[in-house]
């Protein structure tokens, strides 16, 4: 037996396009943990991989679509959600997952997010929130905390950030959860739940950005940021999303929305069936 035979394959290897490795992400970045949790969720649910589509926008996490071994599409900046809407309506058999970043989904793509949530399109949005635009070198975005230093807030951020789970709840999402990359089991459980639930879901993943945002803001190494997550994360059940703050001393995490409501696709199919039935009724009169 030679050494090669003894080498174990990563249990999730079949879910990745091996030829696209190594990935582009920095050491200590939370994107790997996010992707791993997603792949574990797929593995545990034993979903038919031919029926999964992963769609991303632009940014560091946007490359995730290219790494997963399912049908995938890397759209323009901010447009993953409307693209996903077209995919899901055109082929309702598909499970459609959007994996993208806070800037992509909530700044340039913010309008699409609220409208897809309002319509309750059956797509799952997993958002890597690292509080800044990492790919372009660390500019502030719609989730950057007040006073934070970024390359375009050299005197400190004076814009109030979005509370993403509150936005999702107000917009009509049937499921909204927030975890940091520390709570990997809960994150995976949330992804599994969203994948099995009908309707628009948001899972926000607070994610370290050790090379850029965390360094600029002197938050320490990736390990130190994870320790900070451990120190300040507060898990709550059915907490008011409006009060789900993210500050230096408190990160409120948990499931904030978990309700039932017919999806857009279901209502569309019901309406279409009714229209056809009525027409056929008239034709036989």
């Amino acid at each position, binding site marked *: 037996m030679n050494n090669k035979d003894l080498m174990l394959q990563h249990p999730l290897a079949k879910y990745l396009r091996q030829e696209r490795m190594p990935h582009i992400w920095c050491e200590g970045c939370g994107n790997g943990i996010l992707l791993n949790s997603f792949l574990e969720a797929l593995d545990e649910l034993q979903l038919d991989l031919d029926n999964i589509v992963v769609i991303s926008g632009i940014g560091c996490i946007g490359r995730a679509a290219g790494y997963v071994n399912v*049908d995938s599409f*890397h759209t323009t900046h901010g*447009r993953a959600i409307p693209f996903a*809407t*077209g995919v899901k309506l055109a082929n309702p058999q598909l499970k459609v997952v959007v994996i993208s970043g806070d800037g992509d989904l909530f700044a340039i793509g913010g309008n699409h997010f609220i409208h897809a949530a309002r319509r309750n399109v059956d797509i799952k949005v997993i958002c890597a929130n690292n509080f800044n635009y990492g790919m372009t070198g660390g500019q502030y975005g719609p989730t950057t905390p007040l006073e934070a230093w970024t390359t375009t807030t050299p005197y400190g951020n004076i814009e109030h950030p979005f509370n993403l789970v509150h936005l999702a709840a107000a917009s009509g999402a049937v499921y909204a959860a927030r975890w940091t990359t520390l709570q990997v089991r809960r994150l995976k459980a949330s992804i599994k739940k969203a994948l099995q639930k009908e309707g628009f879901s948001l899972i926000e993943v607070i994610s370290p950005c050790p090379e850029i945002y965390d360094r600029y803001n002197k938050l320490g190494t990736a390990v130190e940021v994870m320790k900070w997550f451990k120190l300040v994360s507060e898990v709550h059940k059915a907490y008011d999303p409006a009060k789900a703050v993210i500050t230096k001393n408190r990160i409120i995490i948990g499931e904030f929305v978990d309700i039932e409501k017919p999806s857009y696709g279901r209502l569309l199919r019901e309406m279409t069936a009714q229209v056809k039935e009525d027409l056929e009724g008239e034709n036989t009169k």
Partner: protein
Amino acid sequence: MAKNNKAVLTGTHFLSGDLACAEGALAAGCRFFGGYPITPATEIAERMARRLPQIGGIYIQMEDEIASIAAVIGASYAGKKAMTATSGPGFSLMQENIGLAVMTEAPLVIVDIMRGGPSTGQPTMPGQQDVMQAKWGSHGDYEIIALAPSSVQEMFDLTIECFNLAETFRVPVMLLADEIIGHMWERVEIPPSNEITIINRKKPVVPPREYHPFQPDDDLVPPMACFGEGYRFHATGLTHDEKGAPKTVSIPEQTKLVKRLCGKIRTNTDTIIQVKEVTLEDADVVVVAYGIASRAALSAVRKARTQGIKAGLLRLITIWPFPEKLVAQIAEQAKAIIVPEMNCGQLVREVERAAKTTPVSLLSKLGEEPHRPSEIVEAMRRM
């Protein structure tokens, strides 16, 4: 007739251009419409909202035109024939994702019922001001196909043609009509469905393991798998290789891809380009026109002939790719060329480029009124 569970409404109808366009799309197999209301294209959306559910199709009104075209690209990748319809302002918003459709070779149709611009301009007035935007609106180098109908019948026929071209070449194809053609009512003959030519995108013939989503056949067009068919492929707006893997710094990959995207149109111009020629054989003065302006031009050419002027008309049905070779040939024989356009001079530049030394004169018109035949005849006399 809007109450019908048939996709093809065979028979003789009295329709507006917008409605005929919607019926053409349905006859071509379009089963997904993503759009946003805008004058003077709204009637297309309204017709599709009513008709698509009757035949099991999908209508969705998106939050804006950026979302509309994004959803249409998504639906195309999920296997549907898909379209959107808009006017100038919405067309401007779509431009970035038109580039995405070009780059990822998504077959789809974009209808632009042109109104007066720039900006909000004159929403209910005709224009031909988006001609250059149709060709150059998105960033980067690319080739697209744009057809210009000049009657309600052509709104039906050319919409089908747009879908067939989109499916053949895997490109976004544009139907560039103007407000008058969109809102005008005329007789339309809808043929039996078995007499309508329908082309569908070619599918991969290799098993998923051997499928490379951007590996072209000899015609430079790659076969297209769709989501959920088991091919598990990746597509990206980034420069990519034949496997769909991003190639963001490779000069050979950038060159190869962009040249192929342009090449699949450029090498097929002869099969794509459609024109109508009227008394060109011995023409001294040739009018090159498209859309609404070509109707006055036809009348002007006939009138001029009765007055002893050797006039001819080259009506462009395809405006992109521009029929450069044909215009050059005609220019060799003609003494003068007149280009009536409802803008400040857009396609006239292409005509000038092709015509070389033959004098080309623009007859520009803005606002409510299209060209009058008499104005074109006068222009002929001046030449």
